[in-house]
């Protein structure tokens, strides 16, 4: 069986692995420069920048997610490094005009320094006062604010909680405010098409997008192509959007109030074919690739739940590729149907988020006991209970590792970035099949909905997955016979000729595979199941550290906060600090060299979006080390700036 040289998501040492595109050749870039200013012909200033953060914000019905993703696509095609952060309320149409109903889409793009969606926008699109209010606390100095003047009537700003019209006082004096009558101009632009008021109004996002494209000298073709394609069946709507985006572009071109435009340098990415991909889409595709490598159909049993549903919806499109998607009657039927499918020889997965994970708990125990291959994806969100359905959090880690009755070990992995969800879905399947164990793959809302360019892989680039041979049919084989190295039992799908056998949730005799309540046998089986999972580590690549010579502070992270943590540490390293980072994707079992890494550092700081779950797990595993914590539980990802502050403080106290 193949052993990976390096964990899939580590950027610096793994040229063939899932490179996080934004980090490619990071070391070769100079530190981020100050904005280079060049005056352009119209007397405006054109700023050349390494990277820039744009945020689209409006009512959840304003089409901000669409505007954001179209903008992302265009900048990606140009070759920029990108990180995105869609942030929306859990209600489909939250109360209009209120701060609670604001939907946002933040994009950080550029040549270098793109480790995260960015702490704060350089350009904010605010479609109404609520969108402005929601973002006011986190604007960069001199930020450009594009807003729809038409939606700043008294009623509107009162609803958003302003005491006066924010466009009129000196509240925004430090910013470049561009108040444009977007509603009026959009209606004017599409007037010739005879659309009703509502349909015309819906093109506001296209108009605004046109303005933003002009601001960054980006072409419109990609978006125009999109609108024509999307509204093939209602071409007048497609045309209206095309007219609106062009009108927005031209309006910005002629409008003197815009004082600066930007030129964003493209990133120097590894050559190849790229596409934008979200974490959920990459997860779905990773499973398709893995099932193809195993040579069996893929079975997904799932129940709709935010923010995991997109994985099911993506796979449902690909029945042609052997994906069997079963939308079950509940979370429990989602996983138990998958367990049945594993018993009958499909590559079986189930996808969910925290509350669904809780419901699946008993069935995961069955998969542990029956020793069947199964991948359980938990796209984490804020908890407990229903919690924050659309917000990101990392608070299901201990549930994944330990949250079952009995001694119930399984493998826990986590993905780091939107695109590397592909590789971790693949790796989770490999481990499940080769080691005959359930595997929990933890992603999180932040990377599941976030998008980034993915250097497209082919099946030929992926490692083989060995499902093993069927045993002989002479009666010598027993269902719980094991491979002497991995301790995995054989996968003998129901229907295999001459190999009928029985498995189940009751304890089995370690030799005959028959039901057994023998005390010593139970203890032996508990140990075998533990050792089987521990031995997964025998074939894992070493855990890596960035910061070879550092010895003072080790930053420890896991899961989808990778980009932000890595960015913060990289910046401090460039500033000369004695700091390093190690980021865990293999969580249970841990890579075998983990302790030797911890031993090198004076201080270890575990950073996660929870109250310290990885820290607790590490303390239990390595009581000899002292783990400090940096935690945030706000339903929001880390910010580079807050991390840098915290790290510097730790270094100063050291």
């Amino acid at each position: 069986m193949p052993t990976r040289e390096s964990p899939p998501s580590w950027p610096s040492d793994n040229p063939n692995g899932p490179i996080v595109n934004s980090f490619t050749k990071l070391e070769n870039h100079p530190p981020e420069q100050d904005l280079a200013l060049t005056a352009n012909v119209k007397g405006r200033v054109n700023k050349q920048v390494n990277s820039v953060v744009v945020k689209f914000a409006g009512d959840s019905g304003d089409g901000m997610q669409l505007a954001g993703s179209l903008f992302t696509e265009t900048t990606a095609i140009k070759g920029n490094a990108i990180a995105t952060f869609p942030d929306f309320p859990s209600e489909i149409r939250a109360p209009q005009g209120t701060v609670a109903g604001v939907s946002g889409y933040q994009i950080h793009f550029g040549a270098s320094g793109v480790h995260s969606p960015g702490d704060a926008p350089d350009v904010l699109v605010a479609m109404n006062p609520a969108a402005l209010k929601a973002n006011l606390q986190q604007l960069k100095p001199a930020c450009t604010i594009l807003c729809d003047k038409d939606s700043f009537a008294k009623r509107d700003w009162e609803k958003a909680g302003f005491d006066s019209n924010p466009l009129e006082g000196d509240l925004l004096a430090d910013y470049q405010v561009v108040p444009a009558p977007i509603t009026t101009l959009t209606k004017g632009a599409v007037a010739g098409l005879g659309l009703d008021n509502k349909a015309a109004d819906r093109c506001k996002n296209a108009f605004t997008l046109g303005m933003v494209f002009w601001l960054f000298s980006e072409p419109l073709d990609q978006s125009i192509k999109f609108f024509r394609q999307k509204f093939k069946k209602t071409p007048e709507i497609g045309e209206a959007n095309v007219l609106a985006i062009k009108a927005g572009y031209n309006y910005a071109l002629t409008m003197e109030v815009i004082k600066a435009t930007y030129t964003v340098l493209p990133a120097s990415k590894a050559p190849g074919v790229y596409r934008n991909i979200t974490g959920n889409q990459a997860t779905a595709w990773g499973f398709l690739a893995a099932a193809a490598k195993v040579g069996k159909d893929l079975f997904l049993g799932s129940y709709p739940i935010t923010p995991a549903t997109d994985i099911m919806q993506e796979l449902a499109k690909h029945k042609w590729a052997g994906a069997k998607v079963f939308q079950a009657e509940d979370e429990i039927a989602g996983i138990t149907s998958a367990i049945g499918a594993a018993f009958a020889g499909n590559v079986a997965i189930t996808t969910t988020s925290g509350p669904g994970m809780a419901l699946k708990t008993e069935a995961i125990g069955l998969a542990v006991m029956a020793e069947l291959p199964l991948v359980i994806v938990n796209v984490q969100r804020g908890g407990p209970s229903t919690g924050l359905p659309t917000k990101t959090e990392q608070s299901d880690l201990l549930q994944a590792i330990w949250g079952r009755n009995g001694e119930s070990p399984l493998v826990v992995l986590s993905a780091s970035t939107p695109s590397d969800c592909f590789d971790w879905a693949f790796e989770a399947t490999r481990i499940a099949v080769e080691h005959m164990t359930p595997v929990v793959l933890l992603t999180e809302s932040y990377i599941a909905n976030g998008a980034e360019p993915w250097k497209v892989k082919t099946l030929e680039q992926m490692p083989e997955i060995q499902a093993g041979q069927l045993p002989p049919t002479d009666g010598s084989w027993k269902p719980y016979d094991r491979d002497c190295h991995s301790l995995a039992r054989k996968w003998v799908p129901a229907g295999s000729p001459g190999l009928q056998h029985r498995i189940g949730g009751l304890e089995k005799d370690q030799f005959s595979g028959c039901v057994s309540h023998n005390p010593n046998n139970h203890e032996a089986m508990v140990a075998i199941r533990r050792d089987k999972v521990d031995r997964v580590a025998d074939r894992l690549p070493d855990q890596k550290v960035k910061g070879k010579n550092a010895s003072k502070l080790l930053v420890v992270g896991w899961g989808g906060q990778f980009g932000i943590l890595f960015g913060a540490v990289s910046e401090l390293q460039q500033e000369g600090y004695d700091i390093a980072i190690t980021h865990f994707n293999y969580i249970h079992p841990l890579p075998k060299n983990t302790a030797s890494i911890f031993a090198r550092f004076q201080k270890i700081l575990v950073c996660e979006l929870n109250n310290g779950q990885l820290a607790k797990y590490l303390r239990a595993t390595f009581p000899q080390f002292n783990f400090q914590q940096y935690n945030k539980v706000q339903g929001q990802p880390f910010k580079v700036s807050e991390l840098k502050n915290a790290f510097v403080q730790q270094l100063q106290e050291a």
Partner: protein
Amino acid sequence: MEAIQTAALKPRDYASDQEVKWCPGCGDYAVHSAVQKAFADLALKKDQVAIISGIGCSSRFPYYMDTYGFHTIHGRAAAVATGVKLANPSLSVWVMTGDGDALAIGGNHFIHAQRRNIDMNMVLFNNEIYGLTKGQHSPTTAKGKVLKSSPLGTIENTFSVGELCLGAGGQFYARVPDTDVKLMAQVMTEAYRHKGFAMIEVLQNCVIFNDKTHAQITGKESRALNQLVLEHGKPMIFGANSEKGIRLNGLELEVITLGQGGMGINDVLVHDATNKSNILHTMLVQMRLPEFPVALGVIRRAQSSVFDQDFLAQSEAQKSNTPFKGLNDLFHSGNTFQIN
């Protein structure tokens, strides 16, 4: 049919080598015999059968059969079996369950399995009690019964398995007593042949915790008058000398005595198990002692769209329509861009 083999096996060839551990006298033994007989009559290949169970006395069933078997968790057998069938549609899939397993903790999967009409068979051992946990009331326990969890008598209304099945869109429903191995085996054979979800309720006796709960139906003296064994296309007659019949009087069923009050065989309803409408089937299911005999045999066996067939058909249709030659094609489809 792939699941059928040529070399004839005897019923006992289908039993595993495990010692059967139900209480002596338990009705489960008869079901075990009936299943073996049905499998032998159908000449099923042992390795093409998967028996899936949940938790309860009856759910130990898979261990006692030399087929593929999976003893899962409480209430979830139908959901596990759904995954088994979709993963390998050529398997003959049997769910063994009880009244607590299927109707209480597994009630959700029970109704959705009926609704979807996936091609598998469910044998529900209805002993109107929780046996394995030692005698608590189940959703089918007679109201008023004094048990350890209802020392003052249960105040719960009961589920009727048949009504629940038909109400949830079930297309095949049969009811059989554990005292009649021949009828059980016959009904199981029909269930196997039926395309879609086949529901068999076995009136099973728990000698330990609910002895004789079905005795009025199954008892030697009473059974001629208390059982109406239905056969498709045959008149609904019963009684020691076939002297009784069921007729439709207006919108109600009625018991008549042939040769009395001007009633003859022509007044008796003829059973049509295949009728798409389940109204009459529901009325038959609802017949209760003492006014009526209890309807047994295959009460409903209607054709409808079958979930696993449609599931496969969609995949096949998409395979012949897809623009993608393979996954590499998919990964490179849509908006890709080249960086040099």
